């Protein structure tokens, strides 16, 4: 990626078409893919079909894909399938587990191509790739945002020893049109639309948590994949719409521990569907109260230095979840169990991937 003195020609972003899978959870249809065709067609898709497995989900012609329904998930994971949610888009994390690629991009089926202020279609995937391939800068905030973007740099006062940055594990994109609000906010402001295009990518500083939305999200699966468990949501569970939040808080704690970076900002997609706020309120209800306990828990979470891999970090976190959140609600004991099951399933399906991340954050190949 472009680094150092700027040159007049901008190097083009690699497609990474053999290194990236697009994971899409769906319960209805994949019509939205038609609009994405120019950008997505080079890539392999992993479709995770939620809900009734006997229903046929038609994938538009010309896409290379694998599709998994609930029967497939049960067959592949056996008893460990209990960790994968049913009737909730959280099931998408099954796609992360079965992928064999280095990078994942996940997108919701009600997300379309947005336009930038000049009217040009935004290639969200290309921007995510740029974000992931350029370093992050979590240790000191750069006031001109991502210093690795064209036309930007580190500002006066930014220590030179921190200018190399760290590997980027996560690229969190945003949404124009229907904003990702919780149910109470949706009820109070049903007509509010996000029309503000903020032309920035920035690293979320070390020690800072954020609400990670899974609608438009990319990550380096080799660096951080096992932490992207989207939890127990949906059918039979007391909570919904906190799947991505859970994964984001776990992931951020682990990234901070391992010296990896998380970026947020561009790219934007166009979010077209506002879900029913009353339905959302029922799903989120427990989450709204529980998050008051969850945030202090994650803010205070520390991992011992012996946790040098994502899996070890994650299992350690699951112990802390059990110990400290079990008393908030028995759900968290179940979730802690599911976190362990997830790691076991991940390691079973990905036996040769044991990326050892040294304590200073540099990722060594296995």
């Amino acid at each position, binding site marked *: 990626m472009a680094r150092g003195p*700027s040159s007049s020609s901008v190097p083009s972003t690699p497609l990474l078409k053999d290194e990236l899978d697009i994971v899409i959870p769906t319960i209805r249809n994949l019509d939205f893919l038609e609009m994405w065709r120019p950008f997505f067609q080079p890539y392999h898709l992993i479709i995770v079909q939620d809900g009734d497995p006997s229903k046929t989900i038609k994938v538009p012609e010309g896409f290379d894909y694998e599709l998994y329904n609930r029967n497939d998930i049960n067959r592949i994971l056996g008893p460990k399938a209990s960790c994968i949610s049913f009737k909730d888009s959280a099931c998408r994390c099954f796609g992360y587990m079965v992928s064999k690629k280095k990078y994942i991009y996940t997108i919701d089926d009600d997300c379309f191509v947005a336009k930038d202020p000049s009217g040009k279609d935004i290639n969200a995937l290309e921007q995510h790739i740029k974000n992931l391939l350029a370093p992050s800068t979590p240790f000191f905030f750069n006031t001109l945002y991502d210093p690795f973007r064209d036309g930007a740099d580190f500002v006066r006062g930014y220590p030179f020893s921190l200018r190399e940055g760290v590997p980027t594990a996560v690229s969190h994109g945003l949404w124009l049109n229907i904003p990702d609000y919780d149910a109470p906010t949706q009820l109070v402001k049903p007509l509010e639309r996000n029309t503000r295009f*903020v032309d920035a990518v920035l690293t979320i500083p070390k020690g800072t948590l954020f609400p990670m939305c899974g609608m438009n999200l990319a990550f380096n699966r080799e660096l951080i994949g096992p932490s992207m468990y989207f939890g127990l949501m949906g059918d039979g569970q007391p909570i919904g719409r906190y799947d991505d939040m859970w994964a984001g808080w776990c992931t951020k704690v682990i990234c901070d521990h391992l010296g990896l970076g998380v970026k947020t900002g561009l790219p934007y997609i166009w979010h077209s569907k506002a879900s029913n706020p009353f339905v959302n309120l029922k799903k989120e209800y427990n989450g709204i109260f529980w998050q008051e306990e969850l945030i202090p828990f994650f803010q205070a979470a520390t991992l011992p230095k012996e946790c040098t891999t994502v899996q070890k970090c994650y299992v350690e976190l699951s112990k802390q979840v059990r110990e400290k959140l079990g008393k908030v609600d028995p759900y968290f004991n179940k979730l802690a169990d599911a976190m362990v099951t997830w790691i076991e399933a991940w390691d079973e399906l990905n036996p040769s991937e044991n990326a050892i991340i040294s304590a200073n954050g540099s990722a060594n190949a296995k």
Partner: protein
Amino acid sequence: MSFVVEDNDVDIVIAALWPDLTALFEGWRPIFSRFHIIIIKDYDLEADLHIPPGFDHHIYTKSDIERVVGSTSINFSGHSCRYFGYLISSKKYVVSIDADCLPARDDEGRPIDAISQHIINLKTPATPFFFNTLYDPFREGTDFVRGYPFSLRTGVECVLSCGLWLNAADFDVPTQAVKPHEKNTRYVDAVLTVPLRTFMPVSGINIGFNRHVLGPVMLPAMRLDGEGKQRWGTMDDIWCGMCAKVVCDHLGLGAKTGMPYVWRVGGGNAWESLKKEWKGVKLMEEIVPFFQSVKLPRTVATAEDCVIQIAAMVRGRLGPVDEVFSRAADAMEEWLRIWKRVGSQGR
């Protein structure tokens, strides 16, 4: 939320490092003319200042500074002259903009009222405890996103507003030398809170703050040997920004960064400056880890007391590393003495 920016709440402070300020004042006329403007003349400037008519302003010179402050070890020359403006102001809010800056224009070509934007930033809460992915949730047309804890949605008082610059960005000497033609053309339509325990280089080029709270902290302590008149040779703002962030974090207050933008003319020959020892760049390697490790006792409850504690730590831990830090600690303590005598009367 709609805001009325009261004229009487704000002083604009300008450091006059050259005599002809016509372009500055004419460029800002529609925006500056409603406010009182404090102009501090650089010690080394002998010529009279040219200021066009129609502005409510007061010029302070070296003799005014000497009369008000008395004998002091603090050097108020060069870019540091503006701190006298912070001291002498009696308003709740101070906005300071470098004299080589003009109003920027937004993507629609409209001049940006940097003063009002700073005041809006300072009058709306900051949210340092959890990052909002849609940036400032108090801006029109946006809000807290799903997953943002409700107990954190009231936010805290914002006392520092750090603006940005189009055209000539605030780069250091090596970057400027290597990229002499790089211009910042990207207008990022965002204000965001700097999270708790996150530090950043605060640029004094375009800044606003709550003087009643942060006055004791916005101090001219870090002065490099042979510091000239070029912005890239200064560190005073970086230093007081680090102190200010420690104070904000400790007292549960907020700092924001982002808009407003100003259009900075900049200029100068960075290669010439590179020939001198660019000590500031080396000092940051010590400064950042130091401030990141500062923990103040819980009993410290005022900005002044925070500064006393920080100064002692600077002297103890950084003093042995370089003499410039011992001088900074001295300056911090000296500033507090002056502030108690002169500055705090502004409340």
